[in-house]
């Protein structure tokens, strides 16, 4: 069915510049479409903002820590005793969010606490804190220096770039544990015999659940990332659009993902938070929000999605997940998950969110304000993400 409303990103940007664009959050649009219908809503609303705030393991930062005298080609580098990858160039490193401190006891005393890791280093850097940089090298004719130890802050770095290969997963499992002992997973603590069910997306506010076929989101889309403006630069690793979907096109299990980049120096410790996941490891909670331009009635249909229309699978992390068994113990929607309990095998079990809906809402709101104030213009993607 042809859409009666058709807008371009350029036209929307012209409205933003004039202060005339209508911007609402992915939560607010639900009622607007219910009351006004798709066509009217598509005509009136120009942009819908989304948001998510959750630990996102596949995150990290490229840092160039600047040349020293004498010069050095760092081979091994630590930031606050957390190893960074140095096999790049003389003073370029990558600090990964899940890297624990070199002397962390890990899971030797189970469940390990993982108090400090790469995610914490990133948060400390964006907070402007002093971080201890230590480097070792084998020495060359052009780079003779063999060791370095100094206190640095993010301002000392010529560049610091947040570069997350997989963020903002489009839907995620609902985790339970069918074994008879408590387990500690990246999905949080799971009590035995399905004692709790943990879930991890912001549902109706989640960026990719509002654009299930990537009709607007692609390479070059400007986004909210860690409190600053960032970009989608590629499909995330493990991006997999070929999954079962609902009638409205929403994936019923984990599918798409985003590879995102942004200037770490402009970000905020409020939106990049180092986390310690008991028994599992360190990570980084990332705040991310994507603006969805309402180009036509098809797009308005996608963004109007509400929690009760988004389904995910109940997966056992006690035996199935570690053994690579893909088995679903049933489907639940996010309205049920958010209510605080679900019925599983006739039993009422409590549900536990790992993703902060409160912060997701705040992000969608901030992004909305940026656009309304004309501080944030939409970008035309150079290529859309693979949708099949």
């Amino acid at each position: 069915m042809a859409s009666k409303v058709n807008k371009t990103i350029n036209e929307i940007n012209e409205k933003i510049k004039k202060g005339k664009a209508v911007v609402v959050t992915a939560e607010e649009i639900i009622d607007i479409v219910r009351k006004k219908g798709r066509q009217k809503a598509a005509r009136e609303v120009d942009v819908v903002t989304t948001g998510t705030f959750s630990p996102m393991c596949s995150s990290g930062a490229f840092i160039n820590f600047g040349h020293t005298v004498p010069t050095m080609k760092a081979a091994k580098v630590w930031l606050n005793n957390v190893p960074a990858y140095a096999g790049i160039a003389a003073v370029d490193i990558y600090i990964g969010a899940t890297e624990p401190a070199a002397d962390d006891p890990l899971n030797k005393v189970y469940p390990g606490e993982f108090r400090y890791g790469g995610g914490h280093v990133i948060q400390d850097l964006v907070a402007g804190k002093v971080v201890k940089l230590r480097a070792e090298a084998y020495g060359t004719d052009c780079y003779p220096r063999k060791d370095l130890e100094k206190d640095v802050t993010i301002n000392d770095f010529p560049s610091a770039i947040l570069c997350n290969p997989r963020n903002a997963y489009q839907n995620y499992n609902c985790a339970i544990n069918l074994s008879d002992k408590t387990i500690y997973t990246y999905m949080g603590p799971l009590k035995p015999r399905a004692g709790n069910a943990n879930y991890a997306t912001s549902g109706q506010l989640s960026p990719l659940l509002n654009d299930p076929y990537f009709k607007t989101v692609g390479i070059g889309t400007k986004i909210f990332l860690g409190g600053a403006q960032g970009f989608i630069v590629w499909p995330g690793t493990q991006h997999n659009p070929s999954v079962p979907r609902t009638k409205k096109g929403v994936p019923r299990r984990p599918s798409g993902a985003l590879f995102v980049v942004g200037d770490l120096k402009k970000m905020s410790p409020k939106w990049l938070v180092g986390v310690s996941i008991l028994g599992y490891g360190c990570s980084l909670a990332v705040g991310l929000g994507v603006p969805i331009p309402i180009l036509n009635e098809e797009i308005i249909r996608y963004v109007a999605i509400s929690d009760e229309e988004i389904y995910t699978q109940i997966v056992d992390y006690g035996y199935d997940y570690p053994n690579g068994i893909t088995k679903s113990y049933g489907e639940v929607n996010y309205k049920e998950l958010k209510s605080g309990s679900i019925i599983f095998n006739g039993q009422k079990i409590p549900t536990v969110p790992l993703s902060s809906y409160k912060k997701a809402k705040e992000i969608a709101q901030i992004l909305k304000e940026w656009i309304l104030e004309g501080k944030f213009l939409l970008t035309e993607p150079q290529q859309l993400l693979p949708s099949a």
Partner: protein
Amino acid sequence: MYSKIIALRFPKEIVDKPIVVNLVKKFDLTFNILKATIFPRKEGILVMELRGHRKNFNKGIEYLRSLGISISITGQDVRRNQEKCYHCGTCTAVCPTGALYIIRPDMEVMFDSERCSACEMCVAVCPARAMEVSLDKVHVL
């Protein structure tokens, strides 16, 4: 009916004496033990919910103090760092007393220190390490 979760610290001299039972016999109070530990050098810690008439409750506390037991309200022991908490809700998976709970539909995580039994399960589970154990036991009844 008055009820509070309290933490008792027993000096080693009295750790082997029957004391808590007297709260029932002498003061008509009921209790629910939430945690009990005796340390290597024999100092004991007991966390319990004590319940009864307010007058009896105070008499019971007086009795315990007269034996050299120090008493603190456990809600003072575990605190939430508001700056660090990002309201995910992970802690609600392990909190046994419902002191940590989510208000809906706002999905905001609340902490009711009155209901906290100071089991400290939330401390290690909180991804942002926002739940802190305070070493300051100044708040003595």
